[in-house]
């Protein structure tokens, strides 16, 4: 069946869908600065604004994979710079555990990343998003954990 015959599958290149959790004080601000500086990057990562990276419950990450996300990014202030002093230390610990658990379930660790991006690191934000998009493109769609839609 060609793409033309099948209206449900347009001849469009597959694009990864990446859910990003960004802390309000650093990474979200870094993304804002990337915008203000008119930096260009792929549109695949969509940010959910959370007060602190430490608000990111592992449950949210699992849910994203279940619902069909191809990757998840958790991003916040650099260790030591969390607006709430200690939130990202917990993020860091949790993230390492979580990544191993996901790997155990067959999810490539590249599909779950944590990054520290400050409010002034717009180039870093752009690079992280670009790199992650490329990596996930190469990995292809995620099928693990995914609910049948």
């Amino acid at each position: 069946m060609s793409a033309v015959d099948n209206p449900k599958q347009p001849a469009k290149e597959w694009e990864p869908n990446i859910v990003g959790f960004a802390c309000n004080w650093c990474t979200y601000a870094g993304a804002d600065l990337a915008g203000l500086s008119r930096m260009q990057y792929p549109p695949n990562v969509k940010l959910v604004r959370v007060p602190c990276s430490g608000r990111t419950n592992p449950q949210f990450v699992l849910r994203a994979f279940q619902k069909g996300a191809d990757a998840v990014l958790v991003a916040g202030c650099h260790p030591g710079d969390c607006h709430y002093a200690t939130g990202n230390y917990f993020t860091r610990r949790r993230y390492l555990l979580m990544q191993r658990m996901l790997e155990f379930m067959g999810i490539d660790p590249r599909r779950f990343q944590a990054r520290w991006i400050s409010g002034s690191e717009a180039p870093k934000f752009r690079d992280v998003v670009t790199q992650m998009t490329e990596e996930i493109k190469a990995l292809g769609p995620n099928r693990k954990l995914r609910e049948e839609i």
Partner: protein
Amino acid sequence: MKRIGVFVCHCGSNIANTVHCEKVAQVAKDFPGVVLSTDYKYMCSEPGQVMIQEAIREHNLDGYVVAACSPRMHEPTFRKCAARAGMNPYMVEQVNIREQCSWVHANKEKGTEKSIDLLRMGVAKVVKNEPLYSTTIPVTKRSLVIGGGIAGIQAALDIANAGYPVTLLDREHTIGGRMAQVDKTFPTLDCSACILTPKMVEAAQHPNIELMTYAEVEAVDGFVGNFDVTIRKKARYVDFDQCTGCGACTEKCPKKVPSEFEMELGMRKAIYTPFPQAVPNKPIIDAKHCRYLLDGKCGICKKVCPTGAVDYEQKDELIVERFGAIVVATGFEQFDISAYEEYGAGKIPDVITGLHLERLMNASGPTAGKIKRPSDGKVPEKIVFVKCVGSRDEAKGRPYCSKACCMYVAKHATLLKEKMPNSKSYIFYMDVRTPGKNYEEFYARTQNEYDAQYIRGRVSKIFQVGDKLIVRGEDSLLGRPVEIEADLVVLAAGMDPRGDAKDLARTLGISYDQHGWFTEAHPKLQPVETHTAGIYLAGACQGPKDIPDSVAQASAAAVKAAGLLSKPELTSEAMTALCDEAICSGCGLCQSICPYKSIEIKSINERYHGQMRQRRVSNVNQGLCQGCGACTVACPSGAMNLKGFTNDQILAEVDALCQR
């Protein structure tokens, strides 16, 4: 289902150039809950806001989403806009299609697609929003200042002058701190006592200031606006109400001990005032050395006291007082030089520190201002200074600069030359740092007019030969070893945090860095606040500082404290954590993760199978919670939630982003 409005902003051409705004608004019409979706050139403009307000009324909206710039920019605008139309301001969500779409994705189709995704996310969230309200708490209009050095005194005076009662607490017998020990002050060389004593007296006599010396903070409960502070008033064994400060007791006391104030270069009695200008100027008994208190013998002071003020039975007293704000100004300690064995520090009596020299230079010091070296009382001619002792030395665990030493060494060299024109000062240094008003000029004069010789390089060894001290080092500019035969060596010992700073930090619930300096809430923008609302920092307890910096910071802290006290009541965050008591197991995991100590475990009574029972559950103090959400993730029962960022809301956002 809630009735949701959607407003897509063009931001002039900022968004509309690379996002099909009409299309985005069109697609949003089909999102669940949306009853109205429209676009407009400038949503944040007055006409834009009027349009939103009219739509709220006309369509009876429960909430709305604005797709525009960053919420970090205009969220307050759109919340206020809702409030003006009678909608709870927290029923608004803003999605960012400018910074995160139009400006970063030149491809208009892709930018539009992402904008739609983000908007779907915003709508999915807002249907789960609930009206939120801030709560108010009363403020106790009194302030506590802990530490009565120059910083604490200044903070207390400023708060008192702003009209609020202040308790100025010091653990020592007198206020004044380190500045009282200093002889003259750079860069103007005015005598320290001459500028400090009037301030000490002013603080003592100020109608709004209560002086509480020889007292320590034992415990702090409560939170911003209402701290309940347990204070230990240590036994002085002298009834200050009766004592006139005549001094008869001190004169007659037979027990002599080295004076801490004089850096042990002089003696004091067991019943004493540390220095003549002490405030309060009444003696106390040092229980560790008093013969009567140690073994019941003596009792002379009681006999000679004309007013019967001596009271050997006095005990420590614990009191609890409530304060709205706390300023911490506990200062620093001089680095303990005995860590530098290679300098004979702590062993050779004529290797002294900066503070020792201050006391030797002081007219009311142990030598009445004559520079005599400790070992044999000889007047020194060649004096060597070694800088950065206990500063900028990784090996000693002190990588930081102590800030005041460069200047106080220049001051010492100048004053020594003035006192003893035949003397010569040699100063070993790594760098000379003079970043203050008139500091560089002062340093230049020290070299040019006061003949101080600066030698760049580290000293490797100091040892005694006969009655001379041999100082061996290297002149790194000339690249050759130097050796100086000195009469006196002064180590410019750096500043250390108070030995018990960490204990106090834990009592107060504030943070400290790896060395023990108290941490400010933000190194640039909140330099006097701490992470605990209502507690402020002043002076050297936050990091090494000289007097001008300490005073400036103290006034800043005072403004913060007075600003807090000036409020009739405090309005707390609306987006705070909330515990669902029905499913909370009382495990307390949330309590330990909260950086602001906002969570307590309380007991509740409930009916269970027809019987009353007690159960422990978590309780978030709405006045303290800053809304970080850490507790929500720590909670194994899913009982803890964050208002405005609930689990349900975020999961709905995730679902919306994945559903395409």
